[in-house]
C-alpha cells in the first residue's frame, strides 16, 4: 500500500502519522524524544506502522473476533514489547554492575536488580490480566522507571540496599536501552502476543493478512524542534507552525485559531479556510510555562504527568501563581505547600498560569477566532483544557473549542499531509475530521 508519513521530532516526544493515498489516517506512533534523534524517529514510525497494521487487522476481523479479543491482543502485544525492553534493561544493568560497582557490593546489587526486574515483569503480566488497566504513561522509560524506583525504595528499606546506587544504575542503563535499536515492530512480537491470548483462529487469519501487507512510504515529511536533523531532503522539512496549522485544519476544517503547547514552546497560530497560516507568534526564549514545566512539577510531586490534571481539577480555590519559570517550579511548589496551601489548589493555579501565558501569545497573534483548536501534548491535560475554556470565555466570549484526543499528533499529521501533497499535489483530503 502506498502511504505517506509525517514525523514530528519534538523536544520531549516524537510522533509519527501514516496516511493512506486517500488521506485517511492509517496509524499513529509516539515515543519520548531522546539523544538519538534518528532512533526516536524510527521508533515513532515503527509504532505508527504497528497501529496501522492493528487497524487493518481490526477492519479485517472485528466482526468475527470481537472487540474484547482484539484489545486483548493489543495489550498482549504491548506486554511483549515491554518484556523485551525489560530484558534488555536487565542485561544492561548487570553489565553496568560488573563494570562500575565496587566488587564488595556487586553480588548484593545483582541480586537486588534480579528481584526488581523479576517483580517488574510479574507486575506487567498482572496488569495485562486486568480487563481495565489503569491509565499510564505511553513510554517505557516512565513506566519502568516508576516501578523501578518504587521497588528500589522498598529494597532499600528492607535490606538496606543503596537507593541512590540503584537509581543511578537505572538512569544510566535506561539511556543505553533507549539509544540502541531494539526490534519492537509488528512482526517481532505479534506471534508471541497471539500465543498469549490462546491463538484463536479467527484472529490468526487477520494477523496473517495484516502481517503480509506491504507498506510503501512514498514520501516522509519531517517537522518539529529537531526537524533539521532528520535525514530527509530539505524540501521535505516543514516548520512546526505550518504543520500544526495544517494538521489542525485537517482535523477541524473550520479552525481559524490554533494554540499549540508543546514541551518547550507555545505557539499561537492563525489559519485561513485552507489551513494556511496567516500569522503566528511563539513564546520568546524563556521556556517558562510550557510542557516541560508541568513535567518538572509532576516530577517534584512524584506523580505521572497524566495525573496532574485530574488532581488540579479537584481544586476549589485556585492559588495565584505568578512565576512559571521551569527551573524554580519545584521551589515555588514547596514554598506554597510549606505555607499550607493545598496541593490541588496550587496545581490549579499552576495550570491557570500556564494558560495565561498562552492567552497572551494568542492575543499577540491576533486573538481567538472561531473555531479554536488546542493542540500539542498539553491538550491531553484536562486541567489545562479547563483553564483554557474559562479564560477564553472570560476574554472572548463563546468560542467553539476543539480538542482531539489525538491532539499530540497534530504536527505529525500536518507533516504527513505535506508528504501526500509532495507526491500528489492537489489531492483531496479525507483525514476523517475531528474524530472523537
Amino acid at each position, binding site marked *: 500500500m502506498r502511504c505517506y508519513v509525517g514525523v514530528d521530532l519534538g523536544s520531549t516526544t516524537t510522533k509519527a502519522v501514516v496516511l493512506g493515498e486517500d488521506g485517511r489516517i492509517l496509524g499513529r506512533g509516539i515515543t519520548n524524544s531522546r539523544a538519538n534523534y534518528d532512533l526516536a524517529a524510527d521508533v515513532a514510525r515503527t509504532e505508527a506502522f504497528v497501529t496501522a497494521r492493528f487497524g487493518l487487522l481490526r477492519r479485517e476481523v472485528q466482526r468475527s473476533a470481537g472487540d474484547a479479543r482484539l484489545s486483548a491482543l493489543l495489550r498482549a502485544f504491548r506486554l511483549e514489547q515491554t518484556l523485551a525492553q525489560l530484558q534488555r534493561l536487565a542485561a544492561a544493568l548487570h553489565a553496568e554492575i560488573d563494570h562500575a560497582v565496587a566488587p564488595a557490593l556487586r553480588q548484593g546489587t545483582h541480586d537486588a536488580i534480579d528481584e526488581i526486574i523479576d517483580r517488574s515483569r510479574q507486575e506487567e503480566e498482572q496488569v495485562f490480566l486486568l480487563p481495565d488497566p489503569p491509565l499510564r504513561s505511553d513510554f517505557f522509560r516512565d513506566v519502568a522507571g516508576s516501578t523501578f524506583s518504587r521497588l528500589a525504595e522498598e529494597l532499600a528499606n528492607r535490606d538496606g540496599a543503596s537507593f541512590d546506587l540503584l537509581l543511578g544504575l537505572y538512569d544510566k542503563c535506561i539511556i543505553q536501552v533507549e539509544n540502541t535499536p531494539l526490534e519492537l515492530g509488528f512482526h517481532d512480537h505479534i506471534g508471541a502476543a497471539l500465543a498469549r491470548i490462546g491463538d484463536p483462529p479467527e484472529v490468526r487469519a487477520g494477523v496473517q493478512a495484516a502481517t503480509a501487507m506491504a507498506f510503501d512510504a512514498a514520501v516522509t515529511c519531517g517537522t518539529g524542534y529537531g526537524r533539521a536533523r532528520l535525514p530527509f531532503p530539505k524540501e521535505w522539512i516543514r*516548520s512546526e507552525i505550518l504543520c500544526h496549522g495544517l494538521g489542525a485544519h485537517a482535523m477541524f476544517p473550520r479552525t481559524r485559531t490554533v494554540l499549540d503547547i508543546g514541551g518547550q514552546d507555545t505557539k499561537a497560530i492563525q489559519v*485561513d479556510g485552507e489551513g*494556511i497560516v496567516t*500569522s503566528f507568534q*511563539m513564546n520568546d*526564549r524563556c521556556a517558562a510555562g510550557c510542557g516541560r514545566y508541568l513535567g518538572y512539577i509532576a516530577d517534584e510531586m512524584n506523580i505521572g504527568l497524566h495525573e496532574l490534571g485530574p488532581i488540579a481539577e479537584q481544586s476549589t480555590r485556585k492559588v495565584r501563581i505568578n512565576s512559571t519559570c521551569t527551573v524554580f517550579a519545584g521551589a515555588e511548589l514547596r514554598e506554597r505547600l510549606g505555607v499550607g496551601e493545598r496541593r490541588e489548589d496550587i496545581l490549579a493555579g499552576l495550570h491557570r498560569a500556564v494558560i495565561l501565558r498562552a492567552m497572551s501569545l494568542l492575543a499577540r497573534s491576533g486573538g481567538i477566532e472561531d473555531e479554536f483548536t488546542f493542540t500539542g501534548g498539553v491538550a491531553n491535560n484536562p486541567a489545562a483544557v479547563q483553564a483554557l475554556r474559562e479564560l477564553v470565555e472570560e*476574554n472572548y466570549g463563546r468560542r467553539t473549542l476543539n480538542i482531539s484526543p489525538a491532539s499530540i499528533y497534530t504536527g505529525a499529521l500536518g507533516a504527513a499531509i505535506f508528504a501526500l501533497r509532495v507526491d500528489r499535489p492537489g489531492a483531496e483530503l479525507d483525514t476523517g475530521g475531528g474524530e472523537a
Partner: protein
Amino acid sequence: MKDRSMLLQKEMIAEHFRRLEAAPQTGEKVVYTFVPGNLTELIRSFGALPLLPEINALQSGMRGKSKGYIAEAEKAGHSADVCTYVKADIGMMMSGNIGPTGTKLPPPDLLLLSYTGCYTFMKWFELLREKYQCPTVFLQIPYQGDGTLLPEHRDYVVEQLRQDVIPALEKVTGRPYDEARLRELLALSARAEDDLVAVLHSAKQKPSPIDSYFGGVYYIGPIFSAFRGTPEGVEYYQALREEVEERAAAGEGPMTPSGRLDDQQFRLVVEGPPNWTSFNQFWEMFSDEGAVVVASTYTKVGGTYDFGFRHDPADPLGTLADYCGGCYTNHNLPGRIDMLVEYVRQYQADGFLINSVKSCNSFSAGQLLILREVEKRTGIPGGFIESDLVDPRYFSAANIKNRLESYFQMLRERRRAGGQAASPAAPPAAGRAP
C-alpha cells in the same frame, strides 16, 4: 573585489580615528555625542572632531569584543537588564578605550548630550561625565508627542543651541561661532543627503539593487556619524549612488553573504536595529532564503531624509532643530506606524519583520502594537524575532532561524495558495482582543 564606496568608507573611517588618536597631540578638540540628533556640522564648524560612543559600541559588537566589555561593566555594578550599548561603551573605556580601528580613543573635551529619542542617552552621559569629569552640555529635543515638532519646541531648541551649545563649543575650542562656515557645511550635507536618498529609493525597483537593512547600515555609516558636512562624505555618497545606479540599470541585486542576490524571493520591510555580534550570520538567514530588505526604519535613526528633510543652509540653527526633532525614534508611535505602512506600500513589500532588541526600550516598547497595526493596515503578515544589539548572550541562532524559517515558509505557502501576491485582501485575523 570591493566596491569603490566601501574602500572609500574604510579609508575615511581609518583617517578619522587616526586624527582622533592624535588629537591630544595636535590639540584638536574632541566632542562626544550621539547619533540621533547629532550636530556634526556645528561641531565641525568649530574645527572639533565628533566621536560617537554608540558607533564604538556597535563596532565592539562586530569585532567580538562586546561580550567582554559588557562583563566588565556588569562587574562594575551595571545591571544585566539595561541597554548593552552603554555597557559595551563603559566596558571599553574601562579596558583602555581602544577604538574600533585599534587606535586609542582620546577623552572628550566636551560631552554634547543631544537628548533625542532616547532616555538612556541622558544616563549614559551622566555616567561618562562621572568618569571624565569634563564639561557637559545638554540639548533637550522635545519629543513629537503630538506627531509634529511644535513651533515653540523648535524655538526652544534654537534657543538652547544659541545659549548653551554654541557657548560651550566656543569655550572648549576657543573659537567664535562662525555662521558662514556652518552654512557651507550644511550645504555639503544636503548634497550627500540627496545622494543617500536616491540610493534608498532605488530599492523600489525589482530586483532591488540594495539591501536596505544589512547593506543599509553601511550606507548610512558616514552620514549618521562624523562625515556630514565633509567633502569626503559628499564623495562617498556620489560613489555609492553611481554603483547602485549601475546595478539597478543592469538589473542586479546587492552583494550578500550568500553571494549576489538577484533572485529575490521576498521583499521585506524591517523595523528595529540589527544584531551586531552575529551580523553576517543573521544576514545569511535572510539572504539564504532569497529575502531582500527594501526599507527599514533603523536606517532613519540619524535622520528621516527619505521623507524630504534636507539640512538647509539658509536657516542654520533652525534646520538643526528640525533635524534633531525628526529622527526616527523621536517620532511618536502612530507616526512610526504610518511610516512603516508607507514603506510597505511604496516599496511593494511582501513581508514585514520586526527585530526586537532587548537593549533598546526606545525601539522595543510598543513594537508588538506596531506589528498588529501594520498587519491590519497593509494586510501583509508580520514576523517577530528577538535578539540584542551587542550582547551575544541574547542572540540565539537556532531560535531566530526557527522563526525566520517558519515565517518564510508561511509567506511561501500563502503565495502558493493565493496566486502571485502574498497578500490576500483580507487582513489576517483582524481585530484586537476584546
